[in-house]
């Protein structure tokens, strides 16, 4: 009875804190500008099923793809057992679903095999990060926290899987002893082989203790892990789904035509346009900015992208600028956007909406040098396994630099002047456009 009460309290606290943090993130994402992505629903569902659920874009790198798929599938399937753990925890039952008989036996055995595969995969992942030191996991944005975060996640998963198998081993032995409360159910191929030899000869009391500790550790671990997600790159296990659903379905080469610029150009170029037909500006409205200086100038999809990033570094490793030693790293762009958004969100909670901390995404988090190193080649967008678009953020920041601050590199200003004056990025006269036809 005490255990049931404790369990319900733990569950309640976990759900409360998680929903609070989730609300913080959703509110932050909504700080972004509007963007209508209510179109093409069937195509969006297909994209989500393919890219997030089916992980098709992971296939470009087969070894991590297989390992990742094991951990992902293992996580999803083993979590079916969490359902049973929840019921058992609340009602004080034990293996409440065991009435399913052979199906149950098979399921538990299958979960054990998966648990072992997950465990091994996580160990391989740890080796790749810490022993093989694969280049993608390093780089200037991979400071101590992102590195530790990745290791914590893997270690937690190893510990959780170990707790599950230990619990099963003790349970199995208790079942053999015909211990009270322990129904004979489940099959334990892995825990029998790995842990039972160590527990042989233990008394029923000790085994019960091991079983209970394993059970509590497993479920408290899962609840704690749930609450770790919003602070971690591991949040991608949730965000990958909405992020791919809402992702850009147009040709990657199509950049947005800024509607606020379109209005101005039409007024300027159209002789029939009536400037007085424009409604009087709303004096209370926030002045609109051309391009993005801070995270709140970006749209909500770009902000959602930032919370989805799992810092895998595929974007950066494919980036031509990064490969040739430039400062630009698309992963750093995403991490900077997320960190700045977190900061803005915390400021609002502390000081209210109008607070200005004097900082911005541009320059305090992302430098001009990074932005001007981009070739807009879309390699980062192509590489992202969850359809994040770092390029659109780079472009919006460039737009702010040019349209609001006139701060393009000198050569680009000259290029613009040439286009304005003679319709070409170089200083050639438009009258000479057909000269090539006269040359032999």
């Amino acid at each position, binding site marked *: 009875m005490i255990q049931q009460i404790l369990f319900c309290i733990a569950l309640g606290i976990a759900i409360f804190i998680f929903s609070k943090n989730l609300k913080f993130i959703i509110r932050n994402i909504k700080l972004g500008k509007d963007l209508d992505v209510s179109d093409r629903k069937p195509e969006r569902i297909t994209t989500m099923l393919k890219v997030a659920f089916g992980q098709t874009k992971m296939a470009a790198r087969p070894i991590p793809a297989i390992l990742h798929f094991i951990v992902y599938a293992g996580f999803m399937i083993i979590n079916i057992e969490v359902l049973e753990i929840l019921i058992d925890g609340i009602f004080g039952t034990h293996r409440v679903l065991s009435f399913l008989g052979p199906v149950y036996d098979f399921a538990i055995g299958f979960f054990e095999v998966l648990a072992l595969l997950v465990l091994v995969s996580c160990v391989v992942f740890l080796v790749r990060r810490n022993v093989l030191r694969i280049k993608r996991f390093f780089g200037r944005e991979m400071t101590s926290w992102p590195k530790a975060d990745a290791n914590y996640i893997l270690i937690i998963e190893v510990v959780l899987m170990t707790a599950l198998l230990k619990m099963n081993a003790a349970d199995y032995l208790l079942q053999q002893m015909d211990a009270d409360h322990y129904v004979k159910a489940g099959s334990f191929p892995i825990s029998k082989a790995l842990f039972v030899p160590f527990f042989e000869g233990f008394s029923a009391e000790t085994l019960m203790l091991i079983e209970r500790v394993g059970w509590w550790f497993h479920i408290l671990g899962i609840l704690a892990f749930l609450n770790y997600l919003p602070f971690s790159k591991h949040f991608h296990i949730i965000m990958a789904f909405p992020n791919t659903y809402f992702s850009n379905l147009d040709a990657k080469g199509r950049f947005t035509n800024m509607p606020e610029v379109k209005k101005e150009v039409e007024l300027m170029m159209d002789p029939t346009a009536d400037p007085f037909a424009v409604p009087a500006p709303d004096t209370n409205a926030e002045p609109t900015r051309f391009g993005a200086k801070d995270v709140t100038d970006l749209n909500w999809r770009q902000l959602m992208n930032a919370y989805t990033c799992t810092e895998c570094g595929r974007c950066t490793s494919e980036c031509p600028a990064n490969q040739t030693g430039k400062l630009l790293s698309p992963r750093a762009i995403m991490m900077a956007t997320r960190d700045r958004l977190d900061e803005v969100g915390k400021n609002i909670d502390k000081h209210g909406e109008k607070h200005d901390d004097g900082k911005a995404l541009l320059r305090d988090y992302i430098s001009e040098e990074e932005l001007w190193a981009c070739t807009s080649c*879309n390699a980062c967008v192509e590489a992202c396994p969850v359809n994040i678009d770092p390029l659109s953020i780079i472009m919006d920041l460039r737009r702010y630099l040019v349209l609001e601050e006139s701060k393009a590199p000198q050569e680009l200003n000259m290029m613009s002047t040439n286009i304005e004056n003679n319709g070409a990025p170089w200083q050639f006269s438009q009258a000479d456009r057909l000269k090539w036809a006269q040359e032999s």
Partner: protein
Amino acid sequence: MLNVPTLAQMKASGDAPDVLFWVGCAGSFDDRAKKITKAFAKLLEKAGIKYAVLGTEESCTGDPAKRAGNEFLFQMQAFGNIQTLNAYEVKDIVTTCPHCFNTLKNEYPELGGNYTVKHHSQYLQELLNEGKLSIEGGAFKGKKITFHDPCYLGRANGVYEAPRALIEKLDSEMVELKRSRANGLCCGAGGAQMFKEAEKGEKEINIERTEEALQANPDIIAAGCPFCNTMLTDGVKHFEKESKVKVYDLAELVAKAEDLI
């Protein structure tokens, strides 16, 4: 000398072309790119296509301005070009520049410019398939040709097959680069980088790309973009391989096979 009809001339004689050849700034002014323009014009002529160019009425699509963040200038350019194109009731456009291709195809429609736009690799493939052009003789027989995917043709618009189909028709040996198609490495010119010095780093992107291309040990590096062409040509010169390895545009390859250039 080529006889290149302009839209203005055609309209004056009450005629209209089947397709507008959008030459682009590089194709009009850059010495290397002008050769590509001429090669493609000769191919159009040989295939008996009724085409025209805008000539002095053509202006930059605004692509480099847009990628450099100057949306205002881009939309001014787009506005002007769309007015010209719509005044001539242009419906079909072919261009030898993937940047013009991408902008005309993807970014102009929302601003009022709706055209069927093709890259010249797609257009040439159609001409070959329809039998309007045929490649005979073995100018490239046994030659090793590799293809560099332009970002704005490949990743940006998913056109990977047309350039390869052309190379295959040349009866040559096609070797793929290590990073090709969707994984292709940029030449370093996109995003208006063509018009500025690279930011500081350890290496130029075109050197990285050319190095990879040379590792495939080709006789010819084929390009489908005037800017890629410049970057790769410079790269080949950097490695002092210009006597052994040539950089040609797809149009030049087909025109050479046809003995037109």
